[in-house]
Every structure is written in C-alpha cells, then in structure tokens.
C-alpha cells in the first residue's frame, strides 16, 4: 500500500514540479545565448535584462516551490475535505505520513539537482572546469596530508547523514504543525502557524540546553586541524545526528498520534 500511496502522491505533485523544472532547464541555454550575443543596440538592451531576470526568478521558484508545495499538499489532502477520502482508505496513518515524506524528499533532491544542472549549464566552460578540478584536488591533497584518513572518512559519512536527515526535518516540522493546528483551532491555517511556533520555541530551548556541553567541550579544542576535525567527527556531528533522529521520531509520533486519535475534519 505504501508503494501505491507514493505512486499517487508522485502523480499528484508532478503536475506542479515537472513544468517548473522544465522552465528552469529550458531558460538556461536561452539566457546563456542571450548573454553570449553581447553588444545589443541601446533600444534592445532590455532584452538580456528581462531574460536574466526571468531566469533567476525561475531558479528561485524551483528552490522555494518544493517546501511550499510540500506544505500545501499535506494540508489539502490530510485536513481539508480531501481528508475524508485519504483517512478512510485502508491504509495506516504511518503509511500516509511516510509516503508524503518520501515524495517530499524526492522533490527536494530533484529541485537541488535542477538548480545545480542549470547553474552548471549557465557557467560551464572547459577552462573553468579544469580550474575547479585543480582547486578541488589541491584541497583534497591538503586535507589528506593533514588529517588522519579514518577521521576524514567518519567526518564525510556523518556529513552525508546530516544532509539526508536534513531533507526530512523540514517537512516533518510542517506536518506536525498542520496536525497540531487542526486540534488547537477551528481556523486550521492559524492553528498550524501557532503549532509551528510552538515547535520552534521548544526546539530552540532544547538546542540551547544542548549547546552547554558542546560549548564546554569546545573550549578544550586546540587549534590543530586534527583536533578540530575530531571535535566535529567524534562529538558535535554525532550529537547533531542523534538530536535530528530524536526530533524526527517525536515529530512523526505527534502527527501519527493526532491523525489516529484527534483527527478533526469539519
């Protein structure tokens, strides 16, 4: 059933995302070509300005669309009239949340890719590429000679984990806000905003409290690169990962509990 939910959710969201992605991709060569032409007569100089503006706007749209649409889809399908259909499907509420989360992550990553491809396409030249490779290999060489390789491996793996977990955190915060919103207020949108602030305040308090031990340990870190990396790899990142996992389980649990026990469709 999870697979079918994901399939349906992908279909329901693709009609927003794919056209948006297509616009950003198509505008890339057009913008580049417009700029490449160069010397415009005075009267036509507005053309490159407008095209660049539209191109940048499309990238901003792609960057912001995923989170806005993630919020909109969840709100619309789970707590408005469409909720009557979704919540009476023979599917557990865990599957509902999970399917939304997976699809949200797919679109988040795809929009990063689209932006990356578009910007690369905009600025790519052979010279720039070889310059970039030079710089990167120098940085890699420098890191390799100063930092122990096992520490480096741990560091990289942890960063990958943090990025992956980071993709899930934002949607889960919004899901829980929306779920809380329909419990605490008749006005579901207002309630969701209040729910969002409640979650933010609590998570701020928790992170301030957790910063204390981090600060105490941080004081003892010496200036050497190995010591800095070891602070991050052995202490700071593991705490960040644990905190993220813990937060996500709580947010998921709140949303799940509310959908099971406190659903309030008008």
């Amino acid at each position, binding site marked *: 059933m999870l697979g079918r939910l994901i*399939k349906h959710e992908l279909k*329901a969201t693709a009609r927003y995302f794919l056209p948006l992605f297509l616009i950003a991709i198509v505008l890339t060569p057009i913008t580049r070509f417009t700029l490449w032409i160069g010397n415009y007569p005075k009267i036509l100089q507005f053309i490159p300005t407008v095209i660049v503006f539209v191109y940048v706007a499309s990238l901003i749209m792609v960057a912001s669309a995923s989170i806005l649409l993630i919020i909109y889809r969840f709100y619309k399908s789970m707590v408005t009239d469409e909720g009557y259909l979704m919540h009476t*499907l023979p*599917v557990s509420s865990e599957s509902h949340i999970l399917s939304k989360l997976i699809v949200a992550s797919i679109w988040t990553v795809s929009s990063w890719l689209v932006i990356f491809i578009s910007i690369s396409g905009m600025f790519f030249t052979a010279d720039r590429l070889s310059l970039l490779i030079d710089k990167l290999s120098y940085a890699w060489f420098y890191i390799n000679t100063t930092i122990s390789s096992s520490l480096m491996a741990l560091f990289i793996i942890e960063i990958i984990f943090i990025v992956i977990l980071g993709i899930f955190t934002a949607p889960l915060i919004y899901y829980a806000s929306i779920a809380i919103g329909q419990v605490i207020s008749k006005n579901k949108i207002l309630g969701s905003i209040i729910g969002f602030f409640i979650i933010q305040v609590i998570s701020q308090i928790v992170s301030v409290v957790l910063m204390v031990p981090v600060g105490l340990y941080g004081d003892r870190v010496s200036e050497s690169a190995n010591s800095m990396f070891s602070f991050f790899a052995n202490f700071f990142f593991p705490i960040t990962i644990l905190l993220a996992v813990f937060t996500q389980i709580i947010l998921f649990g709140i949303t799940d509990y509310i959908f099971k026990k406190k*659903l309030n469709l008008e």
Partner: protein
Amino acid sequence: MNPLLECSALSKRYGNVTALSDINLTLERGKIIGLLGPNGSGKTTLIKLINGLLVPSKGQLLINGTAPGTETKKVVSYLPDKTYLNNWMKVKNLLNFFEDFYDNFDKKRAYDMLEKLHINPNDSLKTMSKGTKEKVQLILVMSRNADLYVLDEPIGGVDPASRDYILDTIISNYNENSTVLISTHLIADVENVLDEVIFIQNGRINLQSSVDDIRMKEGKSVDAYFREVYKC
C-alpha cells in the same frame, strides 16, 4: 459470526458538548437502514465514528468484531456529506485510484453506472456541477463490494429524476450479506427502500424498528411518524 456493527455504551464528547451519549446499537446484515434525525442530532458523529474519523470518548464500536482501523476500512464504503474529490482529476483517474486502494472495487460496474447517468469518464471534476460530482462520488462508493455502505445525505444535491436511479442503484448493488446505512432528511424519498429505521435525537437513539412495524403499529408512514416525533 459477529454482528456487522455493534455499539455498546458508545459516547462522544467534543469538549463540554456531548454529541453521542450511551449508544447501544446492533446492525444486522442484509438490510437497508435509515438513520433519521434532525440537524445536530449526532448522525454525522456516529458515521464518522464508524469510519474511524473520530475516536469514541467512551464505550466501543465494532465492525465485524473489530474496532475501526485499516481492516474495517476495507469493508466499509463511505459517502461523506462533503465533496472529497480533488478537482484536477478526471473521472477515469478516480476509478483507477479506487481500484488501486480497494480490492473490492468493481470497475466495470462503475463504468456502467457512469454511462447510465451520462457522465463522461474523460471529464475532469472541475468542469462538473455539484450534483454531478455527488453522482460520481456515489458511483465510486456503490461500485465497491463492501459489507457496510454508509451514505451520509446521499441524495441531497441530486435532482429528483436521478434520485430514483440512485436509489435503484443502491438497492440493486448490495447483496444479502451487506447492509446500507443511509442518513437523510428526505425521508419520503427513501422510505420505500428502507427495511429498518433508527431515530436519533440529542445524541441518543429513540427508536430502532422495522418500517413495517411502524406502519402496522402507528398506522402511518415513516415520514408522517417522523414529523410527529420530532414536531417542533
């Protein structure tokens, strides 16, 4: 075999407001049952409890011996008094959606009914009138081979001519093991198809009786009797 639906001491409160109090109710298989009562009497609350959209404050509700959940949702086919379909889909997409999620969905039956009511499967919902959308919802709901059909105000927005077809559909589509629970104000329209009625008022059940018994004992139609009981 467990009864199809069994409520014992079922209560639901919203804060300080009691929507249902101490309901004891058993529904048998193979009946068409009217759930009748004035506005705010608790009809929709009971229906939402049956569909797991609400959780009881006290007491319990069992369908085939199980509390509402994934298993019961497989065998309960529910028509809410809302338009729950999203506007961007075409009718045929909705049929595929139902086929995907409900093993007991009979797609052929749905296409037959669409044809009878002159609804084009390639039309998208946003081009349809409210009444047509209601028809599509009812077709989706009645095309499932469910144990219990729960219809909340199924004919409210539909023109009288289609009402007859829809009621016919309801009668002809259910089998002897399934029961249809219809909540409505339009008693006169549905009276002829009902086997049994439940009168509900202020969150309590006043009466559960067969239609024949009412006619025999009271000497009047259910509609007339309802007007007498709930006279303002």
